[in-house]
C-alpha cells in the first residue's frame, strides 16, 4: 500500500515537473527517466535470470537509428512503437542464438554484438550511403518527448512489478537459481528467457527512439558500450534483485553522470569503475540489499533473490 502511494505521488510529481521547472531541469529529468527505463528493463531480465546482458547499448542505438531513418516519415510516436517492435525482433533472433550460452560467454557475446552492429553500420554508412551520420529533421516538441519517455518509464516499472508477481516471474527466478532444475519442473526455459529478453529489448529500443531527437545529429557512435555498462552499474548499485533497486541506482548515478560527465568526463568514468569494483566486493546485493539488512537483521545471508 505504501509503495503504491509513493508510486502515485512520484508519478504525479513527474507529470507536473515540466510545467513548473526550467528547460534545463526538464531535460535533466528526461535523461534520468531514460536511465530508469533502461535500467529497469535490464534488471527485470538480467536480475532474476543472472544472464549478464551487455547488449543494452545495441538495442538503444538501434532504436535511435529507427527515429533517425524513419522519424521524418512517420507521425510521432510511431517511430517509438516501431523501434520497440524492431528491438523485440532483434532480441528474438539474438536470444535464440545466444541464450544457450551461460556465464561470461553470454556477456561477451552480447558485448560483441553491440560492437559488431556499430562497426558494420560505420562501414555501411561510409561505403554505401557515403555519409557519416544522419540529421533528425523536424523533431517533436520537448514536452512531447518528455511525456513519451515518462510513459515508457511507467510501462517498464509496471512490467517489472507485474513480472515479479506472476508465474512467469517465478520461472525467471527459477532459471537464475538452477536452470536445469527449472526445466525439469516443467518450465519452458527457452521460451521464458527469449520472451523476457525480447520484452526488455523492446523497452531499450523504444527508449533509444524516444531519446534520439534530443541529439538532432546521429552517427554510429550512438552504439556506445558505455550505455551498456552504465546500465549494469546502475542496476547493481541499486540492487538488481528488487523493483526499487534499479530505479534508485539509475536516479542516483543518472544525476551524478548528468552533472559530472560533461565537466569531469574522465574523473567521472574513473569513479564509475571504482564504484563497480566496490559494489562487487562489498555490496553484492546493492543498496537495496543494504537497506534490507538494516530493516530486519537476517540470521545469515538471506536475500529474496541473490543478484548477479
Amino acid at each position: 500500500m505504501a509503495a503504491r502511494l509513493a508510486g502515485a505521488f512520484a508519478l504525479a510529481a513527474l507529470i507536473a515537473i515540466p510545467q513548473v521547472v526550467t528547460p534545463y531541469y526538464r531535460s535533466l529529468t528526461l535523461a534520468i527517466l531514460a536511465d530508469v527505463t533502461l535500467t529497469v528493463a535490464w534488471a527485470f531480465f538480467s536480475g532474476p535470470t543472472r544472464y549478464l546482458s551487455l547488449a543494452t547499448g545495441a538495442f538503444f542505438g538501434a532504436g535511435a537509428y529507427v527515429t533517425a531513418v524513419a522519424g521524418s516519415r512517420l507521425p510521432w510516436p510511431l517511430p517509438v512503437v516501431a523501434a520497440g517492435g524492431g528491438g523485440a525482433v532483434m532480441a528474438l533472433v539474438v536470444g535464440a542464438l545466444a541464450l544457450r550460452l551461460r556465464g561470461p560467454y553470454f556477456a561477451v557475446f552480447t558485448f560483441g554484438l553491440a560492437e559488431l552492429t556499430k562497426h558494420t553500420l560505420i562501414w555501411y554508412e561510409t561505403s554505401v550511403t557515403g555519409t557519416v551520420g544522419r540529421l533528425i529533421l523536424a523533431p517533436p516538441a520537448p514536452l512531447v518527448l518528455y511525456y513519451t519517455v515518462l510513459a515508457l518509464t511507467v510501462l517498464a516499472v509496471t512490467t517489472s512489478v507485474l513480472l515479479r508477481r506472476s508465474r512467469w516471474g517465478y520461472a525467471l527466478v527459477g532459471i537464475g537459481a538452477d536452470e536445469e532444475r527449472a526445466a525439469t519442473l516443467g518450465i519452458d526455459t527457452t521460451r521464458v528467457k527469449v520472451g523476457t529478453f525480447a520484452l526488455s529489448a523492446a523497452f531499450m529500443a523504444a527508449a533509444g527512439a524516444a531519446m534520439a531527437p534530443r541529439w538532432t545529429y546521429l552517427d554510429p557512435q550512438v552504439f556506445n558500450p558505455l550505455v551498456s555498462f552504465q546500465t549494469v552499474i546502475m542496476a547493481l548499485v541499486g540492487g538488481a534483485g528488487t523493483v526499487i533497486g534499479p530505479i534508485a541506482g539509475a536516479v542516483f548515478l543518472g544525476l551524478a553522470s548528468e552533472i559530472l560527465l560533461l565537466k569531469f568526463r574522465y574523473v567521472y568514468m574513473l569513479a564509475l569503475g571504482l564504484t563497480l569494483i566496490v559494489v562487487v566486493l562489498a555490496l553484492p546485493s546493492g543498496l537495496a540489499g543494504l537497506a534490507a539488512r538494516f530493516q530486519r537483521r537476517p540470521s545469515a545471508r538471506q536475500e529474496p533473490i541473490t543478484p548477479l
Partner: protein
Amino acid sequence: MKLTLLVDIVGAGLMTGGIYALVALGLNLQYGLMRVLNVAHGEFLMIGAYLTYSLHTAWGVHPLLTLLITGPAAFVAGLVLHRLLYARVVAESESREALESRSLLLSFGLLFVLQNTALLLWSADLKGYSYLSTPFHVLGTVFPANRLVAACVALGLSVGFYLVLQRNLMGKAVRALMQEPEGAQLVGINISRLHGLCFGIGIAMSAVTGSLVSMLFELTPFMGLPYTVTALVVVILGGLGNVMGSLLGGLLLGLVETASVYLVASDIRIIASYAVLSLILVLKPSGLFGR
C-alpha cells in the same frame, strides 16, 4: 597468386599473429586457471605501451630494454590486484557461475579505471615514436625491421612460456590446475599462490606486448579494448585453458586478418574479428581445438 604477395601475406600475418599469441596467452592463463575473464587485459597492454613510450621519450631508454621494466612492474601490479580484488571474489563466491560473473564485473570496473587514468595522465592525443623503421628485405618483399623484431620477441616469449609450462614443476602444477582443479588441490598444490602468480604473469605478458606494440603503432588510451577482443577471439578459437591452442589460434587469426586486409578491404578487419567471435561462440563454444 604471385609468390611475393603470398610471402607478403604469410610474413605479415605471422608477425601480427605472434603479437596476438602473446596477448592471448596472458588472457588464457588467467581464465584457464581461475575462471576469471579479465576484460581489462588489453588495458594493461595499453599501460605497458605508454610506459615504454614515456621511458623512451623522457629518459631515452632503449625500447627493447623497457620490457625489463614494464614486465616486472606489471607482474607486481598483477600480484597486488589479485590479492586485493580477485582472491576475495574467488574465496567468497559460492558457485563457479557467481565467480565468473562477479570477476567479469570487477574487470570491467578495472577497465574503466585504467583507461581513464591513462586519459588523465597522457591525454587522448595520439602518441608515438619511431624505432627501427628501416626496411628489411626477405624473399623479394620488404618488411619494416621493427615489426620483425617485435614479432620475434613476442613469438620467442610465447614459445618459451609454453616450454616452461611443459618442462618444469611449476608448469606441471599450472597444467594440473587447468585440467582438474580439485584433483590438483588433493595432491598438495597451493592454489591461491599459483593463482596470484599466474595472474601476475598473464598481466606481465599483456604489458610486454604493449611495449612491443608501441614500437609499431601510435598510441591512444582506447587501444586496449580491440586487443582484448582479439585476445578473446584467439582464446575462444583455441579453447579456454588450452595454451597450445592460444599459440596456434593467435597465428591463425593473424594470417586470416592479414589476408582479409590484403585481399578485401582494411576496414573489414574489426567486423571480421567480431563476426568470428560471435560465430565461434554460437557454433562451438569449446574452441576449434577443444575437446
